[in-house]
């Protein structure tokens, strides 16, 4: 989100999900939408029925590629070069929106200068994308307004994640597609309340509504509301917490509804770090891999067992209602936190989540202030919703960007932290498959989902399988500089020769034994899950 905030001033999907249907062109990059966000993919298909063009850029041949007007498989981690190549052609053909650039944006000149060198030939050398394909996709994007750009973790989970996002913002602003219905730059969130967790200040540097902890005025406001002094320097990100545990600086950890043992990069490194902790509390629905190594495990109520709100990718805050009593002695997370706080000597008495919501909205003037449970109704409201009469905001940056002017960033292409070499000759990328979710804690115990895919696997191109004499289902040993794991082979043309794909859902085939915890984006601290170098061997039978 750091890239979006730098360019536009707001770290969220600029447009609405329903908006996608009205796009003239949809450009999907680094999102396996049909598998990961099926009901957003539905909007893409409906847009196509209405005549929209579809461009898909993904290192894998994904399902959506088959429906695209142009689909390219660019080399892993080469997104900046691909997008710079598109912008080079947009400017060469004069397709940029000159009035929009002049009136609504800044720092265009530096970008224009940088783009001169990104000729189709240079872009082909980096990305492997044919110049004719690059020209076709660029023409579709630039000449079918408004175009909506959709991306997901395929853009962000790189050492250059922030650069990738900035490049997406560049190309959209260049054509004047930000701040219009049906256009925009739209990150698709992987978890149902990621947007809400960020909005609520679940980040080391901000309170609710992105009010900085380092800002004296904001700190004073929260300090008064909460009746206590508050720390003024930003805290540690999850990526920084791991080394802090190893160095003995972080002694206690409170984990709510997360399974970092499976979701964090470099499993061995993290395992070791968790052992260094003096005290680990995990609050969860299930005895997840992380809960198993905790000192205290607190059983939490599920989504159906409590009231509250979630905020989706399109900034829509929506109510959930309690349907049943919690199982056993489980309690809603809000009650657990309030009781723990009281046990620690800081009294928290809330009769209901609504009371907490009202306290939060009073402290969050720009985005949530106009919301109440009653106003949310069944459809919810999209922030910004600053007052009680405000109808919510379907798309951002209408007449002005949140930060004033949209900012172009001249971004040079950089290689991923790890490229294949003699010792580790294969590219490895990771992701999700349609029936499972994240670390599998919820989907693998769901009978109708488990039956779709019961084990982990590694996807390998038929050409590579042939040259290594690998048959479907043969167990392969994958090794990287961090560790090794085993998985049965799935032979498929969905990956290019020289590239392997591993799904992240399966604890017994822990993908993140292989991925790199040392490689992360310097600003956003997002680890590079999407690119590592590995070697494969067939397990001797």
């Amino acid at each position: 989100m750091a890239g979006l905030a730098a360019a536009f001033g707001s770290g969220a999907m600029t447009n609405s999900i329903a908006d996608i249907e009205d796009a003239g062109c949809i450009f999907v990059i680094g999102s396996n939408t049909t598998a990961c966000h099926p009901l957003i993919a539905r909007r893409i298909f409906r847009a196509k029925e209405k005549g929209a063009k579809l461009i898909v850029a993904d290192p894998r041949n994904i399902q959506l590629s088959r429906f695209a007007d142009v689909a390219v498989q660019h080399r892993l981690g080469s997104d900046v070069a691909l997008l710079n190549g598109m912008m080079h052609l947009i400017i060469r053909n004069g397709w940029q929106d000159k009035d929009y650039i002049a009136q609504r944006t800044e720092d265009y000149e530096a970008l224009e200068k940088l783009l001169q060198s990104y000729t189709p030939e240079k872009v082909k050398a980096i990305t492997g994308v044919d110049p004719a394909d690059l020209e076709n996709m660029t023409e579709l994007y630039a000449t079918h307004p408004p175009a909506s750009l959709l991306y997901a973790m395929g853009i962000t989970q790189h050492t250059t994640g922030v650069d990738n996002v900035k490049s997406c913002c560049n190309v959209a602003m260049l054509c004047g597609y930000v701040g219009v219905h049906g256009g925009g730059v739209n990150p698709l969130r992987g978890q149902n309340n990621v947007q809400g967790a960020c909005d609520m200040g679940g980040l080391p540097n901000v309170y609710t509504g992105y009010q900085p902890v380092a800002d004296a005025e904001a700190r004073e406001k929260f300090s008064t509301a909460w009746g206590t002094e508050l720390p003024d320097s930003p805290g540690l990100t999850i990526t920084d917490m791991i080394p802090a545990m190893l160095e003995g600086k972080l002694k206690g950890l409170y984990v709510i509804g997360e399974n970092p043992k499976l979701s964090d990069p470099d499993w061995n490194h993290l395992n070791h770090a968790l052992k260094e902790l003096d005290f680990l509390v995990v609050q969860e629905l299930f005895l997840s891999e992380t809960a198993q190594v905790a000192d205290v495990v607190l059983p939490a109520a599920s989504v159906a067992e409590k009231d509250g709100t979630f905020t989706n990718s399109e900034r829509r805050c929506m109510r959930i209602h309690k349907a049943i009593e919690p199982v056993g002695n489980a309690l809603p997370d809000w009650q657990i936190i309030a009781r723990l706080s009281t046990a620690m000597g800081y009294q928290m008495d809330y009769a209901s989540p609504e009371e907490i919501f009202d306290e939060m909205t009073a402290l969050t003037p720009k985005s949530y202030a106009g919301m109440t449970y009653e106003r949310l109704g069944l459809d919810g409201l999209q922030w910004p919703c600053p007052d009680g009469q405000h109808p919510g905001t379907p798309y951002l940056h209408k007449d002005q960007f949140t930060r004033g002017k949209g900012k172009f960033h001249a971004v040079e292409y950089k290689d991923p932290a790890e490229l294949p070499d003699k010792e580790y000759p294969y590219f490895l990328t990771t992701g999700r498959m349609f029936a499972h979710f994240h670390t599998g804690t919820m989907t693998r115990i769901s009978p109708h989902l488990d039956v779709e895919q019961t084990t982990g696997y590694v996807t390998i191109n038929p050409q590579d399988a042939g040259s290594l004499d690998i048959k479907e289902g043969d167990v392969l040993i994958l090794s990287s500089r961090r560790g090794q794991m085993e998985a049965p082979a799935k032979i498929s043309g969905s990956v290019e020769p020289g590239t392997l794909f591993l799904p992240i859902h399966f604890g017994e085939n822990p993908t993140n034994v292989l991925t790199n915890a040392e490689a992360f984006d310097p600003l956003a601290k997002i680890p590079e899950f999407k690119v590592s170098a590995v070697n494969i061997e067939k397990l001797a039978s």
Partner: protein
Amino acid sequence: MQCKLVPSICSYCGTGCGLLFEVIDGKINSTLPMKTHPVNEGKLCIKGWNLHEHINSFMRLKHPLVKTFGRFIKTDWDEALQVTADRFKEIVAKHGPDSVGMLVSAKITNEENYLAQKFARAVIGTNNVDHCARL
């Protein structure tokens, strides 16, 4: 027989599809798409249609657990929370508030995320709060 439909939001991906839990005699029987919802307009994916299955799973945690000599022992809330509060207070007293970290969640509600970061900042006294948006 008592039957009701309770509106909710899917807790898998970030799309936020509106759904209805079909509750019969206090148990969730199925998940249905909400026809009028602006996000999904009466449709759900395979994960959404089966959302109730993880809620009803026999593998759900039902009691607080405290590890004693390497083994989890079932306990009640008062004891589990007292142990947790005492250990956190001890760590903060010895090593300062920044020796504690908190990982909040993209799976819990806004209200719960708000309280969790308030807990870290106001009760523990640290800004070491993060969640898995990076992962």
